[in-house]
C-alpha cells in the first residue's frame, strides 16, 4: 500500500467516470459519471494527505470535494427538472442548443 497504488485507484475511477460522462445519453447517467470522477479525486486527495502532506488543510480539501459533489448533484437535478418541464428534454442529445 503506497501513494502510487492509491493514485492508480483514483485514476481508474476517474477514467470510468469520464467514460460515463462522455458516452451516456441520459443526463442523470451523465451525472453519475461526474460523481464517479469526484470519487476518484477524493481517493487521490486522501492519499496525498496521508503520504505527502498530513496537514489539516489536506482534510479540508476533501471536505471541499464533498461539497462540490453535493452541489453538482443538486444543481444537476434542478437543471434536469427545469429543462424537462420546459421542453420535455431528458437526453443530452436533445439539449445540445449551444452546439448548434
Amino acid at each position, binding site marked *: 500500500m503506497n501513494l502510487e*497504488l492509491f493514485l492508480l485507484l483514483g485514476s481508474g475511477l476517474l477514467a470510468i467516470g469520464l467514460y460515463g460522462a462522455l458516452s451516456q445519453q441520459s443526463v442523470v447517467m451523465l451525472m453519475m459519471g461526474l460523481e464517479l470522477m469526484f470519487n476518484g479525486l477524493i481517493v487521490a486527495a486522501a492519499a496525498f494527505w496521508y503520504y505527502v502532506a498530513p496537514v489539516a488543510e489536506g482534510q479540508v480539501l476533501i471536505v471541499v470535494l464533498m461539497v462540490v459533489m453535493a452541489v453538482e448533484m443538486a444543481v444537476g437535478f434542478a437543471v434536469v*427538472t427545469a429543462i424537462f418541464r420546459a421542453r420535455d428534454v431528458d437526453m443530452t442529445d436533445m439539449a445540445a442548443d449551444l452546439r448548434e
Partner: protein
Amino acid sequence: MLTAVLFWLFGVSAVVFGFLVFRLDSMARVTFALLASFVFVACEVLLLGLSYLGVVIVLMMVMEMVIMAVFMIMYMMNPAGLMPMAMYHNKPGAMSVSLGTFVVLATGTFLVDWPESRGSRPSDTTKALGESLMGPQMLTMMVLGLVLFATIVATVVLATHRGRYDRFGDDLRARPDDPVPGGVRR
C-alpha cells in the same frame, strides 16, 4: 498485511462497482452499484486514518444515492431494465478517451518523483480537521456554507413550477396572455 489485503479488496470492488454503473440495466441496481463504489472508496479513506471523513462520505452518499434512485426512476424511460435499451452515443470514442486518460494518469503516477512526507500525522485527525475548520480555514468553511445556501436557492428557483405570477414566460417583451386583464388599463 491485513491492510494491504483490505486495500486491494476495497479498491478492486470500488472500480468493479463503478464500471457496473454503466453496464447494468435496472436503474435501481445502477444507483446501488454507484453507492457500493462510494462506500468502498470511503473504506479506503478509513484505511488512511481519516475516520471522520470516511464515515461522513458513507452517510452522505447513502442519502444522495437514495435521492438519486428516485430521480433515476422518474426520468429514465426504462427504469426497471425489463426492456434493455442502449442509451449511448459515441461509445468507442468515449472508451478511447477514458482509456487514454487512464494511461496518461497511470504513467504520470509512476514516473513522477513524489516528494517525501512533510510533518507527522496528527494522532486525532478529527480534532485536527475541526480545529482547522474553526481556525485558519474558517473562511473556507464560510464560503462553503454560502455556496450551499446559494445552491438551495438556485435549485428551488430552477425546479419549482412556474405559477400564475410567471405571466410573461421566456419572452419579457411580449404581452402576457391573461384570461382576465388586470390593472387600470393605462
